[in-house]
């Protein structure tokens, strides 16, 4: 009986297994996108089973399937699909691109998170298309207008200039110029990089970040709030910019070549009264104002002078259409072994100004190897770059008088009296980093990384006097070295029903060293390299070295329940060698919470709501400063005291040396500058992810900004650095992204973002005393830092027009004394009428008032991308609203000294409303070059103008060849495009360009206007 049962059972098996095997046959399929392109690396699973496969380079997968199986596909960037398998099916699965970014993985500090689980204010920017369409020396300028709350201003049109990047408002106070900016931290592939050189060690003024080829960047992530940024602790208060470079993707090797050439056109230039007009104007000023016996220089009167009839257009001569070339090539790929990426870049950006330009040579190699069955991942990056910035050595000026002969004039040609000199600035960077990730368990990952970064800046300058041929040689070398060792442990368990946890613990140790050597000599030829002489008593060279270390421990815990309720907390402690023993450790905690409310049953019926999240965070982050040894009490004998009296240190044949002489105060109390930031935000995805809205409201209080503060004179010291000033920034950010697809071939993506920020100084040292900014040489900058007011407000004399008659000049009724003007000038008709604020009948510094705010209130951008079949049209605009700027460019050109004739060009007076005689309803006062006190004064509120602007930054028309056409040529992708950069600016400002202003609001365009570029490009994929 037993045998019969066994036999029957065996027979049954023998009959059914083949049937089952036949029903569950091995099937092949293909996954493609909507254009029919194969998609590699797509996970294809059978729902409810462990059966799964991945597509290969041809998009093909092989899987055991049976009728009725539910096939699930998932891939980053595409919508997940589910379909029931019917054996008759032709297994071609088409995936639709996921327009929603909600499932994207976002790089955050020391890790990554899905966008859905983010609780901090984080913005990401895909750089691929941007870098393909535009050419720029640095990626920062390409980000302009694209991220809410990130204000990027190009304050010069010079190739290689450094833009200002300010995230959520300025929070830096200084007593001198406006250069103290609150700069973000830049992190490339997890490694903080050298992003600037401190003034002490700066050799070149080239943008340090310009050596990073934008074409190597895949994505930029901006961490704006405390929770996102605080994991970077002491350097995160001004935001963190995470840069992810391009890596190889699975599939066949991706070979890309992008070649473009741009023509740089000269923009609108300054108006110049040339030739005859200049002579007339000079004669007119002489006729009006020259004292008795003072005659015009003979060059204006001597008709036999060969240059008498000159009308040199210096601007035309020195500004010229220039060419920009940019070539990028890369090979990338990936497989089971890991990935590789090699890229090369060359940029040659000729400046529109004679003898200027910028070149970049860059290469980057990144390789990843998988070992021990993917448990060990080894990653190496080596990036090398050189930038070569040529600057105008200053021998030729666009501001020369039109009577001076151009070098092309036959009278001077060949004598080489012009153009002698050079100013070469070369920056090199080597960045090497290596990291190893060890997957100890499925959800436990350990990563160790070591990175070494070295930058070297070299400057060689020679300038020679046009007349004496006596020249100055200058040469400098600056080096920076960073050594960084980081360790992190990530534990990401999932447990229970929908609980997930992510725990990060980490450590980093960083040592930063800087060195600089500068030498100079004076000779009649460029002789520095072999002839460094000691010219009398002067120093011929200086050198300096500085170092600091930073040791950090950090941890972050993120908890998510069903991706509905999100909690996070992070803490970082940083120790720095810059502080005294007791204060060297700073603690930077933060907390956050998020609620994906669309997952609540209440909203289940709201089909138009795809995602809705409310999030909030609060935390502390920090800022440091450049000086390495402030706390130590570095002695510097013989400096000027507060009365500008030089201390003579030699006595009886011996040089004295005491700690009280300048900076010898040992200052162990210095500590971290800390920013408290609160942020509440909401993310919405609506109408099938076609509309995305992000709103953030924040408040950032930066406390303990470093400033010199007065010490009681009885201490033996004058002043000391203290954590003394507080600045508050409050703001709102709004982002709206839409992607509309009206028909299969047409789509329109729109991005609008704007941010409002209000900036206020909360506390200042010495009893909230005003700080009037002055340079180290005592020059007044016209800016004030005042408690309760915005940072760096203009501190100007208030103009009330021009005195039209003698009786308008106020007279003190008590004393009968008339109002005295600046520099004790006896005021006259035609002089500027400044308001005597304190009614003391004397115009002096006490009469200056806050006359404007250089901090932009509204900033933002508007981008529109239209796609039709292979065509695309992209327009990027940026705007700034609510900012005051000073037209220093005009002010400087209207101010004449008594030797004005024949030296500089003159503006065309007819275009300006200038006072000459009683009754003239003029805006600008008398230009009398012989006046005891010029009425064209630096800090005249009349020159404050509205600095708002709307700029169409770039417009690109591109065409991508369709697939069928490509089959005939050996390319996978061919794209042709044309971009116009700096297309048009709408502004109320009367000067050249409202964007080209310094951080503290003064026109900076005179030196170098912004070019308009027309770029033609060809992008090939093999």
């Amino acid at each position, binding site marked *: 009986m037993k045998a019969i049962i066994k036999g029957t059972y065996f027979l049954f098996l023998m009959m059914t297994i083949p049937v089952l095997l036949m029903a569950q046959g091995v099937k092949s399929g293909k996954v493609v996108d909507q254009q029919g392109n194969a998609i590699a690396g797509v996970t294809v699973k059978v729902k409810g089973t462990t059966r799964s496969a991945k597509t290969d380079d041809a998009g093909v997968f092989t899987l055991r399937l049976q009728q009725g199986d539910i096939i699930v596909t998932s891939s980053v960037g595409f919508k997940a699909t589910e379909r029931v398998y019917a054996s008759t099916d032709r297994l071609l699965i088409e995936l639709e691109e996921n327009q929603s970014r909600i499932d994207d993985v976002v790089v955050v500090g020391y890790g990554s998170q899905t966008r859905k689980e983010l609780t901090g204010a984080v913005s990401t920017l895909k750089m691929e298309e941007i870098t393909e369409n535009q050419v720029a020396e640095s990626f920062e300028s390409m980000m302009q207008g694209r991220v809410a709350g990130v204000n990027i201003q190009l304050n010069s049109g010079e190739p290689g200039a450094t833009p200002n990047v300010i995230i959520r408002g300025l929070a830096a106070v200084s007593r001198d110029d406006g250069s103290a900016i609150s700069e973000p931290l830049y992190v490339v592939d997890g490694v903080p990089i050298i992003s600037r050189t401190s003034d002490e060690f700066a050799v070149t003024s080239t943008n340090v970040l310009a050596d990073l080829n934008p074409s190597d960047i895949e994505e930029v992530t901006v961490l704006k709030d405390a929770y996102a940024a605080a994991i970077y602790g002491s350097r995160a208060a001004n935001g963190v910019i995470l840069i992810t470079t391009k890596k190889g993707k699975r599939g066949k090797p991706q070979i890309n070549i992008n070649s473009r050439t741009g023509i740089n056109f000269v923009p609108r230039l300054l108006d110049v009264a040339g030739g005859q007009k200049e002579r007339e104007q000079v004669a007119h000023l002489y006729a009006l104002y020259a004292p008795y016996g003072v005659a015009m220089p003979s060059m204006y009167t001597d008709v036999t002078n060969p240059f008498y009839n000159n009308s040199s257009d210096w601007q035309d001569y020195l500004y010229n259409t220039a060419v920009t070339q940019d070539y990028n090539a890369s090979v990338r790929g990936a497989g089971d072994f890991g990935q590789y990426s090699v890229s090369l870049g060359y940029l040659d950006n000729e400046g529109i100004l004679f003898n200027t330009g910028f070149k970049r040579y860059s290469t980057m190699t990144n390789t990843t190897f998988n070992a021990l069955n993917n448990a060990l991942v080894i990653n190496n990056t080596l990036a090398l770059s050189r930038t070569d910035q040529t600057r105008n050595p200053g021998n030729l000026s666009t501001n020369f008088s039109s009577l001076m002969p151009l070098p092309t004039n036959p009278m001077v040609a060949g004598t080489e009296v012009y153009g002698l000199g050079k100013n070469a600035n070369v920056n090199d960077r080597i960045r090497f980093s290596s990291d190893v990730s060890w997957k*100890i*368990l499925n959800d*436990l990952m*350990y990563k160790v990384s070591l990175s070494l970064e070295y930058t070297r800046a070299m400057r060689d300058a020679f300038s020679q006097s046009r007349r004496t041929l006596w020249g100055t040689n200058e040469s400098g070398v600056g080096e920076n070295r960073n050594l960084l060792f980081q*360790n992190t*442990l990530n*534990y990401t*368990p999932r447990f229970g029903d929908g609980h997930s946890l992510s*725990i990060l*613990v980490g*450590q980093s140790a960083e040592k930063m060293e800087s060195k600089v050597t500068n030498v100079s000599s004076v000779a009649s030829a460029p002789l520095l390299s072999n002839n460094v002489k000691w010219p009398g008593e002067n120093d011929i060279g200086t*050198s*300096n*070295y500085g*170092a*600091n*270390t930073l*040791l950090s*421990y950090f941890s972050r815990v993120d908890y998510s329940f069903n991706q509905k309720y999100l909690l996070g907390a992070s803490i970082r402690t940083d*120790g*720095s*060698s810059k502080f005294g*023993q007791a204060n060297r450790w700073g603690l930077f905690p933060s907390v956050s919470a998020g609620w994906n409310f669309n997952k609540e049953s209440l909203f289940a019926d709201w089909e138009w709501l795809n995602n809705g999240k409310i999030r909030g965070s609060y935390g502390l982050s920090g800022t440091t400063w450049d000086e*390495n*040894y402030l706390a*130590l*009490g*570095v*002695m*510097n004998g013989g400096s000027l005291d*507060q*009365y500008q*009296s030089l*201390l*003579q*240190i*030699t*006595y*009886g*044949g*011996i*040089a*004295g*040396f*005491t*700690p*009280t*002489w300048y900076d*010898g105060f*040992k200052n162990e109390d210095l500590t971290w500058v800390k920013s408290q930031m609160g942020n509440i935000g909401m993310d919405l995805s609506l109408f099938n992810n076609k509309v995305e809205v992000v709103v953030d409201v924040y408040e950032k209080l930066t406390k303990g900004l470093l400033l010199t503060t*007065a*010490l*009681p*004179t*009885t*201490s*033996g*010291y*004058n002043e000391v650095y203290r954590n003394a000033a507080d600045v508050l920034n409050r703001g709102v950010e709004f982002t709206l992204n839409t992607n509309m697809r009206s028909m299969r071939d047409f789509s329109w993506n729109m991005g609008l973002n704007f941010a409002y920020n209000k900036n206020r100084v909360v506390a200042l040292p*010495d009893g909230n005393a005003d700080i009037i900014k002055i340079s180290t040489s005592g020059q007044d900058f016209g800016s004030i830092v005042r408690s309760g007011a915005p940072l760096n407000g203009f501190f100007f004399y208030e103009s009330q027009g021009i005195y039209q008659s003698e009786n308008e000049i106020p007279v003190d009724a008590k004393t009968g004394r008339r109002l005295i003007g600046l520099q004790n000038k006896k005021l006259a008709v035609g002089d500027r009428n400044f308001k005597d604020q304190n009614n003391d009948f004397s115009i002096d510094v006490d009469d200056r008032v806050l006359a404007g705010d250089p901090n932009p209130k509204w900033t933002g951008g508007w981008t529109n991308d239209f796609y039709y079949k292979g065509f695309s049209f992209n327009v990027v605009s940026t705007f700034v609203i609510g900012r005051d700027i000073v037209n220093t460019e005009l002010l400087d050109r209207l101010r004449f000294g008594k030797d004005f004739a024949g030296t500089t060009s003159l503006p065309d007076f007819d275009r300006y409303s200038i006072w000459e005689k009683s009754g003239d309803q003029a805006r600008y006062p008398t230009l009398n070059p012989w006046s005891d006190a010029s009425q064209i004064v630096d800090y005249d509120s009349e020159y404050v103008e509205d600095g708002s602007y709307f700029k169409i930054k770039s417009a690109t028309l591109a065409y991508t060849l369709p697939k069928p056409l490509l089959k005939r040529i050996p390319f996978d992708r061919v794209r042709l495009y044309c971009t116009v950069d700096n297309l048009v600016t709408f502004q109320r400002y009367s000067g050249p360009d409202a964007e080209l202003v310094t951080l503290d609001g003064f026109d900076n365009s005179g030196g170098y206007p912004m070019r308009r570029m027309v770029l033609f490009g060809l992008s090939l994929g093999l």
Partner: protein
Amino acid sequence: MRINLIGDCGIRNTVLLQINDIKNTVMNKIKPITWCALVALLLFIFSSCEDYLTIDEVENRTIATDYYDSPQKLEQAVVGIYVDMRRALLHNHAWLMYGEGRAGDLTLEVDFMDDMAAQRLTNGTLPLRQLTDWGYFYDAIQDANYLLEKLGSAKGEMLSSYQYNLYRGEALALKSMAYFYLTRIWGTVPSAEATDRGKLLTQQEVLTRCVQWAAEAKPLLPRLLLNDDGIVSTALTEVRFNKTAVCLLLAHQQLWLGKGQEAYDGLTAVFEGQGADSLSNLGLSLGKDSDPDITQQPYTGNPITITKEKLDAIYPVGDTRRSMFTIPEAGTTASLIIEEQNMLLLYSTKEISLLMAEAAWRAGQLETAKSHLTTAAIGATENYALLTAGTFADALLRERQRILMGSGQRFFDLIRFDKIRQFLPSYTESDITLGAAYWPLSAQSIRTNGLEQNKYWSK
């Protein structure tokens, strides 16, 4: 620079706790050997080396804490105090303005002289702001205190006993002199001593401290200083504190305190029977230094002048000390002749007899006092043997004025002899009570320390 990479490594407890949390969760899943490797690795990584953050040396910078590690460098610190004192007394001819300038005896062709003569000391012009700022004196005090602290550890190890005694004596004497100037210029002044920094001290308290420091310096300072080769140098002795100078300083301070007998005893013990060779002047070195930028100002440029009328009143015709001045035939002024242009004379050996005369007089020994005054006043037309107890004070004050003309002592003498109103009748009794005899304080001096302006000057 050296940054220690390896030091005493202590495990940070907080990090260990976090590691333990993870350990509890995952330890069951990991093989023991892997676990051991992991723990060892983490211990290595997360152990903290505090020394990593300590910068031991800063190669190209000078840090006060580490700098003074040789006798030469300590001497630089001593010299630094003299430099501070020189700055305090020379800027805007301060030494003269605090003395004969304000008293109206001597004048200079400078912008602020009119304000000085009219006693408009709060005018607010830069020179007056600087003259009313006591900061430079406090710089000297701070540097002296810093040196005294440094010397404490240097005794016996780095310095010979001669060097130790000299530097310490100089620091004490200079500090004593700086406070002495402060209290004579401003009256009540705050302490800059570590024990009671900022405490406002009465003039009596300041003088008591000054006497204490000068008395401490007295046995430490040699009569004549040695140069680097160990040879006695009179040139060096003249520009550094020596025994003569500190004894004069001490006696001067004691006389301010009214301690005539103590002053007399001290002076006789040091000076009686001493030959001129063992005595030395004290001045602040000017001009002759290797640095060509050290000018011989105040003695170059504008001459220090006196009106002929005043000259005749102070030095009657026949007084041989009129030879201290160049008296032109024409004009209304005479100019002071500066014999030694390489230093600003602070204590002259001529003052020994003057102070002994005053000390004897204040100690009740009129005859001895008259004898010393006669010795001091060589060239005078008066017969001081005839002085009485009632006339001695005026005669002494006059002789001090004559002998010390140009040394900056005059106004201080008027305060000490209570003669302000007599010589500056524009001041009322109540002005003097409020503090008119002392200088106002600049805004710089009273900021951030809670001090108030002198009552007279804040009227």
